[in-house]
């Protein structure tokens, strides 16, 4: 909402400069997001045309002699409308700086020196007419600054209004707010047509005369029926005859201009002015284009269509409320008028509509049609139903003043059920209970009264009738906010409470955080990807399908919810590879989504890891990351958080469940036999279709299962540190390629009996003298007796058992 400081000052007698007004409004919840000054036009003055002659060499230019009250100057002008001598124009003298940044100086134009420039509206930012220079209709003192002569100086506020304050969508509402904030009197616009006082309007479903005098008791000039009193609780109109359509006076055009509206003609400009004054949309029809001279307010019939003012043909819905003449729709109620019924330059009889439409109905129609207008914006937020007669009277008055129409007009309305404000009780105790501040009842009463409430004290409470322009005031808390708002939040007490009650019931969120922090400690950098993805990427990554679909995606490639973290991470990797980043180790912990058959899809937290590229540092180890780097990272991550070890094993079912893995270089990870995820290299076909450089190590862990098996929340039970020394023996075993080191190790451990403390692989060797399909595994077996120092003899005996078992179980050759 744009608001003019100058206009606000006409409506409220406050004493404050624009900066103060902006601050006060902001602190009262009407956030002034910007201010712009208008009409500062130094060096632009009123001048009189004294003579004009053609330019000697340029046929589109005119040489104009102007007089600013002191001296004459010759100015070269390119406008087609240079007036005859005696007329007044706006002269930008040498040195003047125009709002568009242009600085006027002596210039040579085709061999003629021009001293100054005659200005048009757009150059001065005082209007939108760019057909030529401004020629003033009225007389002004020559040489007077244009800003002063034309009353141009103004400051326009850009106010970010919240949707609960429709009353402030007009200057009168803002002025009322300022009146309460500054304690300054409000000056309501004067009406030349008296209105019936609000609240005494006779209710009924038949049209009744609205204004005393003309039309009272007589038949209305337009037949009116309202078939839908729910969508249209109040409809009023008036006919003005003998109107002459022409341009509005400058002050009106300028006012609309600074507030961002284009001047059209006097009648349309008046409806726009009242829109910005009362915040109330009205519509002017050309009465002679209303077929059958009647208005019917009803919902749309099947297949009904209308061509709106913007020239678009629109199909209507049975829920849409229409304004119809004798033959069909002439406006979409509260949204936009029709193309053929509006005011044109030939219009002589105007029918002005002022109605209250149901906010929800207007909103549904406006959304359905994709038509958001100044009118729908206000109707859907709720205009003041009781302002109808005043608004109509204001339009009629202005038309009488500015378009020469017949006044008083013969207004009439259908208003079956009068709006009555609801009574709200405000208890002084409730104020203190909610705000933690003691506020005197009289203070609250003063504030609410200034905001337009009808307040009656009753003991320790106030009986409050909220004004109908404030649909947001419906309960006690709303009134408390008004009191707090006008006092100013910063002026209310602040109390630092003691520590909050916490049940500390959040082990799962703590677990998530521990996982992330451990992952970073294990050398992984965290990625956060958008949850949206595309069918193409899900297919390329062989992610689970079908995925959850967004019905109204923001763009084509973001129409599905990720079912895996691989789509996002693969794109992060691709980006890094394209930027020649030598290695990538990232993780992401986020939710993935799958259809569940229910209203809400199935969501689960996954933790995924990607390792790619050179592992090493500057001192060699340029080899790429492989499966075992991934396993190492997961060990560093899972063990400290869950205090559990996982097993990694080849699992044929992974091929179906996680087909994005290399079938021979991937493993299922389990704890207590429960799958907690999988780790492996990505399938080469997947790498190829993602246009990645491989190999890529990927792991995806199921966070809720990890949480379920975690012992991280239990205090660890500490074992005593050993008091006696350990002794170790090495053993190298040649086995078939298919044998897993892990199972060999557990055989050794078992064979050695109670003395074995640990079995650790320290070398893996292939080739050389070994036969094809064989590998040598070297283990270090550590022996320890917790109760005594081991003798060599006892160690040798135990190790002999280990060797013997290895030989028989694996038909293994023992080396070294």
């Amino acid at each position, binding site marked *: 909402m744009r608001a003019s400081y100058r206009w606000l000052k006409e409506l409220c007698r406050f004493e404050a400069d624009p900066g103060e007004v902006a601050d006060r409004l902001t*602190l009262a*919840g009407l*956030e002034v997001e910007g201010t712009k000054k208008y009409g500062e036009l130094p060096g632009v003055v009123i001048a009189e045309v004294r003579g004009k002659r053609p330019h000697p060499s340029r046929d589109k230019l005119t040489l104009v002699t102007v007089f600013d009250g002191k001296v004459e100057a010759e100015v070269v002008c390119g406008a087609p409308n240079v007036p005859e001598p005696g007329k007044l124009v706006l002269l930008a003298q040498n040195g003047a700086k125009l709002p568009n940044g242009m600085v006027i100086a002596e210039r040579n134009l085709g061999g003629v020196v021009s001293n100054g420039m005659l200005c048009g509206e757009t150059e001065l930012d005082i209007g939108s007419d760019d057909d030529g220079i401004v020629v003033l209709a009225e007389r002004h003192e020559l040489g007077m600054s244009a800003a002063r002569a034309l009353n141009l100086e103004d400051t326009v506020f850009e106010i970010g209004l919240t*949707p609960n*304050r429709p009353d402030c969508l007009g200057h009168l509402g803002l002025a009322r707010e300022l009146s309460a904030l500054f304690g300054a009197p409000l000056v309501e616009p004067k009406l030349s047509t008296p209105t019936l006082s609000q609240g005494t309007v006779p209710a009924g479903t038949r049209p009744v005369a609205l204004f005393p005098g003309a039309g009272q008791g007589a038949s209305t000039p337009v037949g009116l029926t309202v078939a839908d009193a729910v969508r249209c609780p109040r409809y009023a109109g008036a006919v003005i005859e003998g109107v002459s359509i022409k341009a509005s006076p400058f002050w009106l055009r300028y006012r609309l201009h600074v507030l961002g509206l284009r001047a059209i003609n006097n009648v349309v400009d008046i409806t726009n002015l009242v829109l910005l004054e009362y915040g109330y949309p009205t519509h002017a029809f050309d009465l002679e284009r209303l077929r059958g001279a009647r208005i019917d307010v009803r919902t749309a019939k099947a297949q009904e269509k209308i061509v709106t003012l913007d020239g678009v043909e629109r199909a209507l819905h049975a829920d849409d409320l229409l304004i119809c003449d004798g033959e069909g729709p002439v406006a979409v109620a509260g949204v936009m008028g029709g193309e053929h019924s509006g005011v044109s330059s030939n219009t002589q009889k105007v029918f002005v509509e002022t109605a209250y439409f149901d906010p929800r109905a207007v*909103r*549904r129609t406006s959304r359905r049609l994709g038509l958001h207008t100044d009118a729908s914006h206000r109707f*859907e*937020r709720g205009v003041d139903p009781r302002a109808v007669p005043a608004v109509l009277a204001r339009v009629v008055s202005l038309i009488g003043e500015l378009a020469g129409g017949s006044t008083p007009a013969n207004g009439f309305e259908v208003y079956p059920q009068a709006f009555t404000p609801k009574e709200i009780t405000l208890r002084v105790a409730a104020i203190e*209970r*909610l705000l*933690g*501040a003691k506020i005197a009842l009289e203070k609250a009463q003063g504030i609410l009264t200034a905001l337009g409430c009808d307040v009656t004290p009753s003991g320790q409470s106030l009986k409050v009738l909220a004004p109908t322009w404030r649909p947001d005031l419906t*309960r006690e*808390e709303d009134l408390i*906010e008004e009191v*707090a708002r006008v006092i100013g*939040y*910063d002026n*209310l007490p*602040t*109390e*630092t*409470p003691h*520590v*909050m*009650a916490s*049940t*500390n019931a959040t082990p799962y*969120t703590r677990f998530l955080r521990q996982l*992330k922090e451990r992952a*970073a400690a294990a*050398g992984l*950098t*965290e*990625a*956060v*990807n958008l949850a*949206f993805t595309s069918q193409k990427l899900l297919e390329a990554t062989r992610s689970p399908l079908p995925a*959850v*679909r*967004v*019905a109204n995606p*923001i*763009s084509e490639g973001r129409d599905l*919810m990720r079912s895996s973290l691989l789509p996002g991470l693969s794109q*992060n990797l691709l*980006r*890094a590879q394209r*930027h020649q980043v030598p290695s990538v180790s*990232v993780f992401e912990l986020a*939710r993935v989504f799958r259809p569940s*058959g229910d*209203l809400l*899809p199935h*969501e689960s937290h996954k933790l995924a890891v990607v390792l790619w590229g050179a592992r*090493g*540092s*500057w*001192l060699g180890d340029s080899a790429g990351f492989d499966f075992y780097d991934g396993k190492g990272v997961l060990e560093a991550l899972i063990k400290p958080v869950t205090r559990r070890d996982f097993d990694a094993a080849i699992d044929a079912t992974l091929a179906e469940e996680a087909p994005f893995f290399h079938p021979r270089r991937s493993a299922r990870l389990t704890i207590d036999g429960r799958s907690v995820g999988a780790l492996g290299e990505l399938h080469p076909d997947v790498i190829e279709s993602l246009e990645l450089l491989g190999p890529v190590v990927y792991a995806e862990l199921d966070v809720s299962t990890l949480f379920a098996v975690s012992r991280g929340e239990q205090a660890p039970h500490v074992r005593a540190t050993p008091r006696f020394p350990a002794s170790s023996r090495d053993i190298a075993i040649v086995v078939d390629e298919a044998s897993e080191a892990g199972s060999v190790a557990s055989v050794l451990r078992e064979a050695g009996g109670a003395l074995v403390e640990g079995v650790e692989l320290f070398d893996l060797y292939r080739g050389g003298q070994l036969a094809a399909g064989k590998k040598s595994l070297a283990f270090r077996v550590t022996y320890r007796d917790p109760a005594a120092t081991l003798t060599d003899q006892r160690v040798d005996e135990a190790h002999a058992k280990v060797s013997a078992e290895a030989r028989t179980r694996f038909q293994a050759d023992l080396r070294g």
Partner: protein
Amino acid sequence: MTDIVGEWEVVLERVRAAASAFGTAATEHELREQNARLSGPSGELTALMKRMKEVPGDKKRELGQRSNAVKQELERAFADALAALARKQREAELSGPAIDPSLPGRNVKLGRLHPITQVTYRLLDVFASLGFDVADGPEIDLHKHNFDMLGFPPDHPATDMQDSFFIAKEGSNEVDRGALLRTHTSTIQIREMLKRKPPLAVVAPGAVFRRDDDATHSPMFFQIEGFVVDEGVTFAQLKGVLTRFLRALFGEETPVKFRPSYFPFVEPGGEIDIYRNGRWMEVLGCGMIHPVVLENVGYDPQKVSGFAFGMGVDRMAMLLYGIDNIKQLYENDVRLLTQF
């Protein structure tokens, strides 16, 4: 007889002389060789001692004692010379060529949390110190949790502030208005209040979704929602807690300004601006929980009251780290991420 005694004297004297020259050895090896020539298995002194039986009985004792004294002298001289050599070597080492400290360090792989996560944890830590629990909830939620129970009127422009992504019915493109990507973490407020009874002090971080996409809006972004419900919770306490929070985050001297605003689920509602880098900046929305919301979750608004607040984590991260385009937060460019 005198022969052997005289010869003995001569050898002992020679050995003593040789021992006194130990200091001239340049290396440990040289020193050990010198020593071996005297007291090694085939050394001069060793050889002499083997001839003790040739010494006449009355001289045996004296020569034996003198030989042992020479031997001890020899050992001492050797030990001293060895220590001197070691000291010389240490001194050489301490004054020799220095290392090149400018060579790069050997990699210890460092991971980093995403800036959004870092800011989230920073915010949560402040709230944890004030006694708040951390809660979590689904990203796709029911319309009633996201709007209806929070007091958004149906067909009301307030929902325009939060343009939603809806979920398509399974197997079709038909919109299911019952479920949507949550537009704010206030859904967790509803879920937690339905699940638990006051007193409650909860913060809930998470991803939220709105149909916006430009330099300052991402269709997915992060929020932290928090709320307190108990008997006697007031607006004054809201101001106290949030002022403490903002000052803990941005510095104790940070100017904080409260001004009214509108969210359907609070009344009175407000926004907080902080003064930072020469201007006022909006950082969070807040208010007293609307009685309708309390009623909707089965609380009695005449008995308990509460306040709620919410803030954009992305916005805080952009503010704290000087990031000007929100998209940078979601590109996951490792060259950016490794700066945090």
